[in-house]
């Protein structure tokens, strides 16, 4: 087993990883920026190293500082959490070069899945369904336009290096193609320094359904069911659940098998997520792979009773998975609401400030993952997620009622939050009927659902 793990992250996921390490008897090293001197993860870890000033690029993205802190404290592994350096192949390679275990897949695998058009080709070769599209990439609008005519509209124009919705535009017809392509390419150039684009048929009104996988270094891969993350705004997930209300058992089986196939095709190890778009006819298409633990991993933990972060640490330590696909059962229904310090009425503007009072829900089937405490100051430097409320019920409706009950008693004083907004989603008929697709939040904000 690993002896000492440095957690290259902050907030609730750093706390989550520290707890998992402690339960395994692994010592922990926290890193923090000067803005996080009074953060909970700093106090829960056995050691803590200040790695830089508040801006993430100088601290939580500062690879040299983090590797140096790991070497200086004698950590034998680094867990990157999510965001920050978690999908940075260069960082994973730096770890390897310095004799430190990176708790995640090999750098080559991160790289292969990080390039979206390359990942798409890999999946096609492995026989995993992808949206109909062009195999080639494009640097020039006219060449792309010729290919588009073959493909047919609506078309999704995407950046090869894309992520988080940047460099992604929908072309509705021939008329707007050149314009949208040019805008998307400019966005990509600005955001990623890369103007390579590719084309796919656009899936209209899709649901976002993703499969959680665990893969060890002995070639064993298991799929832990799926999560439905269709409730999102600007590609930011707000509510996640497992299982998906839109998936029938046969499609679930196929999707899980395809996720395992995808992992095996790239020699994946550690926890990972294969994201699919699910259309109204029950067809699904590979979208991308996240080569790290996800914010919403907890809903899978609630229905499979597998501790995903613990398994990541065991896999990184070279252990075999202690269970097989046959042991995995999806039991009950779990929902997560992300609680953010933000003002929904003001276009979800972040709301930094000092938390003066809290009351967190608890009891049967309720889990709260958070790093806040009374007196904690939320700074404007990092993302606005302050807590995750996760509930489990035997049925979906039971879980929804449990979430409603949990949100009803939850109190956070000192900053604005989206608690009321999340509550109103739980009360929405379209959501309750399990009919919300990725267009839901837009319609919800316009009062159309």
């Amino acid at each position: 087993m690993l002896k000492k793990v440095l957690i290259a992250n902050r907030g609730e996921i750093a706390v989550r990883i520290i707890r998992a390490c402690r339960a395994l008897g692994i010592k922990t090293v926290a890193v923090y920026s000067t803005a996080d001197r009074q953060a909970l993860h700093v106090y829960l870890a056995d050691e803590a190293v200040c790695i830089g000033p508040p801006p993430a690029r100088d601290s939580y993205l500062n690879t040299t500082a983090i590797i140096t802190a790991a070497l200086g404290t004698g950590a034998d592994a680094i867990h990157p959490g999510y965001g920050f350096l978690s999908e940075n192949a260069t960082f994973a390679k730096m770890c390897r070069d310095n004799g430190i275990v990176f708790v995640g897949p090999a750098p080559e695998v991160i790289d292969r899945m990080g390039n979206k058009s390359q990942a798409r080709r890999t999946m096609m070769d492995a026989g995993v369904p992808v949206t109909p599209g062009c195999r080639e990439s494009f640097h020039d609008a006219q060449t792309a336009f010729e290919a588009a005519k073959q493909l047919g509209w609506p078309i999704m124009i995407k950046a090869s290096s894309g992520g988080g919705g940047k460099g992604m535009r929908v072309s509705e017809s021939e008329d707007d193609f050149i314009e949208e392509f040019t805008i998307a390419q400019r966005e990509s150039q600005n955001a990623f320094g890369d103007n390579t684009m590719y084309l796919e048929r656009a899936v209209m009104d899709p649901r976002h359904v993703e499969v959680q996988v665990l893969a060890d270094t002995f070639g064993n891969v298991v799929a832990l069911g799926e999560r439905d993350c269709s409730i999102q705004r600007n590609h930011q997930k707000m509510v996640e659940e497992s299982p998906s209300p839109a998936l029938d058992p046969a499609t679930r089986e196929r999707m899980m098998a395809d996720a395992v196939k995808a992992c095996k095709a790239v020699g994946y190890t550690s926890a990972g997520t294969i994201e699919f778009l699910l259309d109204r006819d029950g067809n699904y298409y590979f979208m991308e792979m996240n080569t790290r633990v996800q914010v919403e991993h907890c809903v899978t933990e609630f229905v499979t009773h597998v501790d995903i972060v613990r398994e990541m640490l065991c896999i990184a330590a070279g252990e075999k998975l202690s269970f097989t696909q046959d042991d995995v059962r999806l039991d009950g229904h779990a929902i997560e609401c992300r609680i953010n310090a933000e003002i929904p009425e003001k276009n979800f503007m972040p709301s930094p400030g000092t938390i003066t009072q809290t009351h967190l829900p608890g009891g049967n089937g309720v889990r709260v993952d958070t790093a806040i405490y009374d007196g904690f100051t939320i700074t404007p430097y990092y993302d606005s997620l302050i807590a995750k409320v996760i509930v489990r019920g035997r049925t979906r409706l039971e879980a929804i009622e449990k979430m409603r009950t949990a949100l009803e008693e939850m109190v956070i004083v000192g900053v604005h939050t989206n608690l009321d907004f999340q509550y109103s989603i739980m009360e929405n008929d379209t959501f309750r009927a399990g009919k919300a697709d990725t267009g839901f939040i837009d319609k919800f904000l316009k009062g159309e659902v």
Partner: protein
Amino acid sequence: MDKKKLQAQTVRELLDIMDEGNLSAIRYKDGDVKIELERALPRVDGLSLPHMAQRVRELIDTEASASGTTQGAASAPVAQDESSDTLVRSPMVGTFYVGPSPDEDPFVKPGQEVLTGQTLAIVEAMKMMDEIKAPAPGIVTEVLAANGSQVEYDQPLFRISTEASAQ
């Protein structure tokens, strides 16, 4: 053959399988025979309840009272009681060296007068050397980190008395 012996043999084989597979538990059932093995997890030493809880308690105590105060009046910046002293802090995580190499003299010694920009020490991280320079003229009154030790970002390295120099 003796049945008890047979089962001891089975247990031993299961133990081998556990070792090979680096398993923490194994469950075996063959008819009436049922064997469960579970490996004891290593104890965590050097950690204790008081240690851990004490740290969290410190945090929530401090912050709760701090936030209580700031509600009343704008809080003053931290401790200015030694206003004539300048603290030189580490610009990065790394190893702190007082001289250019182990066998050479240190750049500066306590009591020595320094000028703005004069090299005081080196912090090294992953072969990157960063020279620590005096931010103002003054007298080095204290070296706050040990030669060769790991220093973190923002950690005080030198205390320079600027008033003494101004006299």
